[in-house]
C-alpha cells in the first residue's frame, strides 16, 4: 500500500494595508469619530500646556548672564543654575579638593556602565561595586593620606548618590537575607526576621532618620562615634531592606515547589539550592518591583533634609537663598527634578533591559 505524502500549505503574506506606520496611526488615533475627536482635543490640550512651558524653558530663558539680565527676562534663568553648579554637585565640600568627589563620581559612572553593558560576570560586578563604595568613602571622607573632610561638609548630588548607592548595595542583600529568614524552618530566625520586617515597615522613614541620628548614639559604646551621614545611612538601609525583603519574598513564593525538590533530589545543600536555583529565578521574577524599590530609595534620600544634611534637594533650596541670586527657586527645583528624573528613568530603563534578557529564556 502506498501512502500519499502530506504537504503543509505554504504561509501566505497578510493582505495589503495591515502593516506600516500610517496604518498604526489610523488604528490608534483616528479609528472612528470618537477617537478622532479625542485625538484632536488631546493635541490641543498638550499644546496649551507645552507652548508657555516651552517659552519659559527655552525661548525667553537666559542661559548666560547675571541676576540683572535674568530679572529683565520673562523666562527661566539657567545662568543661575550654571553659576551654582559646583554647589549643586558637591554642597559645602572644600572647593580646593573637588577632584576627589569628581573622581568618585567618574568611577561610579564607569562601574554603572560596566554593569549596564554586562561586560563582566556577576561575581566581578559585586566585587566592583564593593570596591567602588570603599574607594568613594575614602575619596570623599579622606584619611589614609588624604586630608579628612567631616561628613558635615558633604552635600549636594554627591551626598544623594552616596546615600542611594550605598543604600541599594546594602539593602538588597540584607533584604534577601530577611526574606529567606522569614521563610526559614527555624522558628526563631523566622520570628526575628518577621519582627524586623514588620517593625520597620510600620515606621515612616522620616521617623527612622530621626531615630538613627538621635537614638543610635545612645546604643553605641562611648568610644564609638559615627558621623551623621553614617547614622542616616544605617537608617535608610534598614528601612529599604524591610521593603525589599517583602518584594523578594513574593518572588520566592512564586517559585514552584518542584524546583526545590529537583535541586534537593540532585543532592544540593540548602545554600546551594537557594543560591543556584531558587534566588536567580525569584529575583528575575521580581526585578520590576525591585528596581522600583531602588528608585524609591534614591528619591527617599531627600528626606535627610530634616536633620540638616544638605543633599541635592536641600542644596537647591539653599542655593535659592543666595543674596546675589534671589528669586530663582523655581529654576533650582526644576533642575533638581530634571536630574532626579534622568537618574530614575535610567534605572527604570536598565530594569526593563534586564527583564527583556530574562524573558528571552522562556521563548
Amino acid at each position, binding site marked *: 500500500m502506498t501512502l500519499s505524502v502530506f504537504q503543509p500549505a505554504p504561509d501566505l503574506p497578510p493582505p495589503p494595508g495591515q502593516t506600516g506606520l500610517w496604518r498604526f496611526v489610523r488604528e490608534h488615533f483616528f479609528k472612528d469619530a470618537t477617537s478622532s475627536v479625542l485625538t484632536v482635543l488631546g493635541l490641543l490640550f498638550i499644546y496649551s500646556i507645552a507652548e508657555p512651558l516651552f517659552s519659559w524653558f527655552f525661548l525667553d530663558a537666559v542661559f548666560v548672564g547675571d541676576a540683572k539680565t535674568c530679572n529683565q527676562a520673562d523666562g527661566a534663568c539657567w545662568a543661575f543654575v550654571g553659576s551654582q553648579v559646583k554647589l549643586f554637585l558637591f554642597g559645602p565640600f572644600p572647593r580646593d579638593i573637588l577632584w576627589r568627589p569628581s573622581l568618585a563620581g567618574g568611577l561610579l559612572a564607569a562601574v554603572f556602565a560596566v554593569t549596564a553593558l554586562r561586560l563582566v560576570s556577576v561575581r566581578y560586578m559585586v566585587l566592583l561595586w564593593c570596591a567602588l563604595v570603599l574607594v568613594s568613602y575614602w575619596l570623599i571622607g579622606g584619611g589614609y593620606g588624604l586630608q579628612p573632610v567631616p561628613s558635615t561638609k558633604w552635600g549636594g548630588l554627591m551626598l544623594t548618590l552616596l546615600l542611594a548607592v550605598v543604600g541599594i548595595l546594602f539593602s538588597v542583600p540584607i533584604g534577601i537575607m530577611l526574606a529567606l529568614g522569614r521563610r526559614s524552618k527555624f522558628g526563631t530566625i523566622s520570628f526575628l526576621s518577621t519582627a524586623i520586617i514588620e517593625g520597620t515597615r510600620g515606621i515612616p522613614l522620616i521617623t527612622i532618620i530621626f531615630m538613627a541620628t538621635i537614638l543610635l548614639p545612645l546604643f553605641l559604646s562611648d568610644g564609638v562615634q559615627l558621623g551623621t551621614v553614617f547614622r542616616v545611612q544605617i537608617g535608610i538601609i534598614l528601612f529599604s531592606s524591610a521593603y525589599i525583603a517583602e518584594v523578594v519574598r513574593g518572588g520566592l513564593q512564586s517559585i*514552584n515547589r*518542584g*524546583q526545590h*525538590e*529537583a*535541586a*534537593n*533530589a*540532585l*543532592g*544540593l*545543600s540548602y545554600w*546551594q539550592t537557594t543560591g*543556584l*536555583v531558587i534566588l*536567580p*529565578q525569584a529575583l*528575575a521574577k521580581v526585578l520590576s518591583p525591585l528596581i522600583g524599590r531602588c528608585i524609591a530609595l534614591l528619591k527617599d534620600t531627600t528626606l535627610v533634609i530634616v536633620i540638616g544634611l544638605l543633599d541635592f534637594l536641600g542644596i537647591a533650596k539653599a542655593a535659592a537663598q543666595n543674596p546675589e541670586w534671589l528669586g530663582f527657586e523655581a529654576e533650582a527645583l526644576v533642575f533638581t527634578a530634571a536630574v532626579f528624573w534622568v537618574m530614575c528613568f535610567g534605572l527604570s530603563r536598565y530594569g526593563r533591559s534586564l527583564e527583556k534578557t*530574562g524573558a528571552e*529564556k*522562556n*521563548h
Partner: protein
Amino acid sequence: MIELIDVNKWYGHFHALKSINLSIGKGERIVVCGPSGSGKSTLIRCINRLEVHQRGKIIVDGVELNDQMQNIMAVRREVGMCFQQFNLFSHLTILDNLILGPVWVREMPRRQAVNLAMSFLERVGIADQQNKYPGQLSGGQQQRVAIARSLCMSPKIMLFDEPTSSLDPEMVKEVLDVMEELAREGLTMICVTHEMGFARSIADRMVFMDGGEIVEESPPSEFFSNPKMDRTLSFLNQILH
C-alpha cells in the same frame, strides 16, 4: 539495596502510607501502580526523603534515612529522580542544568562535567539542544533532559514519578524508549507509572497500591494474567480496556 520496614506516613490526620514493607535488590526494576491517592508517589518520594516518614525504617544502600542531614545527603547523591513535571531549572540552559549536580555536589571540574553531560545528552538524543532553555523544548525533550540530568550524577538508583503522565501522547514513546534502555543496562529502578506495556516489558516485579497499602506484589507475568486480589483485578480492568 533498598529496605522499607514498617514505614508509616501521615499528612495531618490522613494516614498516607500504612505499614509498608518492601525490599528491593540491586539491579531490580520495580513498577509501582495504583489509583490516584493510593500513596505510590508518596512512597517513592520517601526513598530520597522529599517526604519524611514518621514511623518505620528506610535504609538505602546501607544508609538509614533519619533526621541526620549527612545521611540524607549521602542517599540523595546516589539516588536520581525524575518528576511528572520535569522540574528542569528554567533559568539555566540545558547544558547548565546537567552540569549543576556534578560541579556542585560531586565537585567535578567544569570541563569534565561538560563532557559527561554531552555524552548523556547524546544518549537521550538531544545533544543539539544544549544551549537552549527548558521552556524552548517540548515536554518529551524536557523529560529526556531531566533523565540525563539525573544520570550525570551516576546514581545507583533511579526513581521515576509518573514520568509520562503530563506528556502529549506523541511524546510518551520517546521517553519510554530512554527508560527501557536504562532498564536493560541494569540500573536499579523504581517507577510509578500507568504505562502497562512498559511495565510488562521491563519490570521484574509489580507493586500494586491502594489506600496507602501494598495490595499485591508479583512478577508482571503473574500480575497481569493471574492477579491474586480482586482489587488488583478491578484496577487492571479499568486501565487495560
